[in-house]
């Protein structure tokens, strides 16, 4: 018989329609999977009760694959086929990866992402990460007794598009539908419920095993925006272990230890460090292979003293991140601690001192990111009522804009803007006496409308007749938290308005989005030329039209020769417009405008004469 979980009031699922969703913290050193059960976010453990899965994958010669603790054990003996910290390679080329020469892997530099040669063939970081995700997926499906509708996977705030896409691809490969990628600091803040709290700026201090990240987040109307990030990719809890290990060697007065003894001492150092987070002192008793014995006691104060410089080192990135965000420490409303190393009391003390307030530490710092992701997944899977008022955290994948004269796009909302967002821009009329305007809403990174995706069209009618360029039409783009776009246009003097509603990401697959982004980059050069050409063509059309209009009205001011010369320039410019050379069109426009200089002056004189005729001078106020 199936086991039931307690649902929120009124949210009991239909039989066979449980919407199981998980949050995954795909970490550099360890990964976790969490879900919301009985209304509470919990991390899911494996058969032996361990919830952390070391992010280590081993490809064995017999074709099997080990993931996690089993793979860790083989790290020393089969280093080439045992991949640790694959996250560093996600979406990176060989040249982007630091310290390649010190790594035991057999790299292959292929276009785009680096690959690793293993006993089971060449593997991409995406495939290796997929093994970790697959293991977590199986664990979740066994724990929840059902298939997952999807997962929220966390990524560092500084991950770029390629790294995010690689993470998504890994999930797809592992058979996990991605509900959303969530920034790790945002997930930690969500776990603490800060998204329901008052608006303000929060700092997330994430000291993991081998990396340190500091993010400054700004919360406004339920949406977190990353203001700045900083960190140190080579500073983590392991450095504290190492410092204590060196201290033990120093104090114990023993011969330089063998590899095995050193490993044993290192483990002891780590245990002692962890013990010091809850006790005032920790014993270090080790019987070495060499026959020597280490018998020491380390106190909390001694440990704090010997690692003071490491703690100080984390404050550098903190200062830089605050400076980048233009903030002082006392403007930060709360500090969230993430990563096992933040359990150390002297780190908490240093952070409290710097920010002038106690950091948030009551959730398990190892699990807080996964728990936040699980809470977000629970919302996205539809297991909570709307009235709980959770705003979704998302960004616009492709720029949104309008078609302007000549089939060019004018971007109004740039890609990667966080939702919800509103932007307005003013446009004007193209022709004298124009009373209507057609709007074409498009999405994409390309310069020409024909290369972008058409989203909607609408018209604004009833613009009071004015000369070209005098009307002010304000077009507002608004994307709400669900990604729903509404575009409205308003003529500012008369107040006439028109609007349209669209769902911008509707029907676009990730592949299509990626393809559109790629083509935007690949065709940047072509696009620039195309834009220049269209701009000149539009300008030429406008000048020709204005000239012909003028000849029609005031042709009498021209002699036959002058008229013929202007008409010749017009014909000439028309011919140039059909060509592809924007510079030639520009010179044609200049030629026409020179040919009409006199004519324009005469028209001006005549219109002033007409305007003044029959009036006395004192009728005009000066």
């Amino acid at each position, binding site marked *: 018989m199936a*086991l039931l979980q*307690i*649902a929120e009031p*009124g949210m*009991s699922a239909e*039989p066979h329609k449980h919407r199981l969703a998980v949050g995954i913290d795909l970490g550099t050193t360890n990964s976790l999977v969490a879900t919301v*059960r009985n209304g*509470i976010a919990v991390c899911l*453990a494996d058969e032996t009760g361990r919830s952390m899965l070391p992010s280590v994958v081993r490809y064995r010669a017999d074709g099997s694959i080990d993931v996690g603790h089993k793979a860790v054990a083989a790290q020393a003996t089969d280093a080439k086929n045992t991949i640790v910290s694959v996250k560093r390679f996600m979406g990176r080329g060989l040249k982007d990866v630091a310290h390649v020469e010190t790594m035991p892997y057999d790299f292959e530099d292929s276009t785009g992402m680096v690959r690793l040669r293993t006993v089971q063939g060449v593997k991409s970081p995406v495939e290796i990460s997929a093994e970790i995700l697959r293991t977590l997926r199986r664990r979740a499906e066994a724990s929840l007794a059902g298939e997952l509708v999807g997962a929220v996977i966390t990524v560092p705030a500084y991950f770029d598009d390629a790294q995010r896409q690689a993470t998504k691809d890994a999930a797809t490969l592992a058979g996990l539908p991605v509900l959303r990628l969530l920034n790790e600091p945002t997930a930690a803040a969500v776990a603490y419920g800060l998204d329901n709290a008052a608006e303000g700026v929060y700092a997330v201090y994430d000291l993991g095993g081998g990396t340190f990240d500091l993010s400054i987040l700004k919360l406004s109307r339920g949406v977190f925006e990353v203001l700045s990030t900083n960190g140190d990719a080579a500073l983590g809890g392991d450095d504290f272990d190492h410092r204590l290990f060196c201290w033990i060697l120093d104090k114990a007065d023993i011969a330089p230890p063998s590899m095995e003894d050193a490993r044993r001492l290192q483990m002891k150092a780590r245990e002692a460090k962890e013990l010091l987070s809850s006790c005032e002192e920790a014993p270090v008793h080790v019987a070495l292979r060499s026959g020597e014995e280490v018998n020491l006691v380390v106190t909390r104060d001694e440990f704090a003293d010997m690692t003071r410089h490491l703690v100080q080192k984390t404050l550098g990135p903190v200062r830089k991140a605050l400076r980048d965000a233009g903030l002082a420490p006392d403007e930060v409303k709360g500090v969230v601690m993430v990563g096992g190393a933040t359990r150390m009391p002297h780190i908490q003390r240093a952070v409290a001192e710097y920010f002038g307030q106690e950091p948030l530490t009551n959730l398990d710092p190892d699990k807080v990111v996964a728990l936040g992701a699980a809470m977000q997944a629970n919302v996205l899977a539809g297991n909570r009522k709307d009235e709980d008022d959770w705003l979704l955290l998302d960004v616009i994948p492709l720029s949104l804009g309008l078609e302007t004269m000549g089939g060019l796009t004018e971007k109004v909302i740039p890609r990667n803007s966080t939702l919800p967002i509103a932007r307005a821009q003013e446009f004007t009329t193209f022709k004298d006496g124009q009373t209507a305007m057609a709007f074409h809403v498009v999405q994409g990174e390309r310069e020409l409308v024909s290369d972008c995706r058409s989203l909607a069209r609408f018209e604004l009618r009833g613009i009071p007749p004015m000369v070209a360029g005098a009307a002010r039409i304000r077009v507002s783009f608004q994307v709400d938290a669900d990604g729903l776009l509404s575009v409205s246009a308003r003529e500012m003097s008369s107040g006439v308005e028109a609007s349209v509603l669209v769902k911008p990401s509707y029907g676009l697959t990730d592949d299509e989005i990626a393809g559109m982004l790629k083509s935007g980059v690949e065709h940047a050069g072509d696009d620039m030329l195309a834009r220049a050409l269209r701009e000149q063509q539009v300008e030429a059309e406008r000048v020709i039209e204005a000239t012909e209009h003028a000849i029609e009205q005031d042709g009498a001011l021209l002699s036959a020769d002058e008229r013929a010369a202007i008409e010749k320039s017009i014909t000439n410019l028309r011919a140039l417009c059909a060509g592809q050379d924007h510079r030639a069109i520009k010179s044609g426009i200049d030629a026409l405008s020179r040919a009409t200089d006199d004519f324009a002056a005469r028209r001006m004189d005549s219109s002033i004469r007409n305007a003044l005729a029959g009036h006395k001078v004192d009728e005009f106020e000066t």
Partner: protein
Amino acid sequence: MSVTLSESAAKHVSNFIAKRGRGVGIRLGVKTSGCSGMAYKLEFVDETQGEDVVFESHGVKVIVDPKSLPYLEGTELDFVREGLNEGFKFNNPNVKDQCGCGESFNV
């Protein structure tokens, strides 16, 4: 007759309510749906409705709406672990048969 919780179920329910931060008890109910006629409802309760029947079991309020009560008379809610999975189980003496998965049943 009444509706009760096993000791382990009661312990878990009060734990969940405490962690959730609000809630006066737990609602057991049935609704007509599912492949075999009826399906169980198991929800937190933020406030009881006027016609609700309230039982108390191991210090936890068990709330049942009067329409569901005939189907649930004598039921004991248990908390069990099956492999990696854990959750609540209805031990309902009224059930005649249930679908293969046990998510819905008939009386």
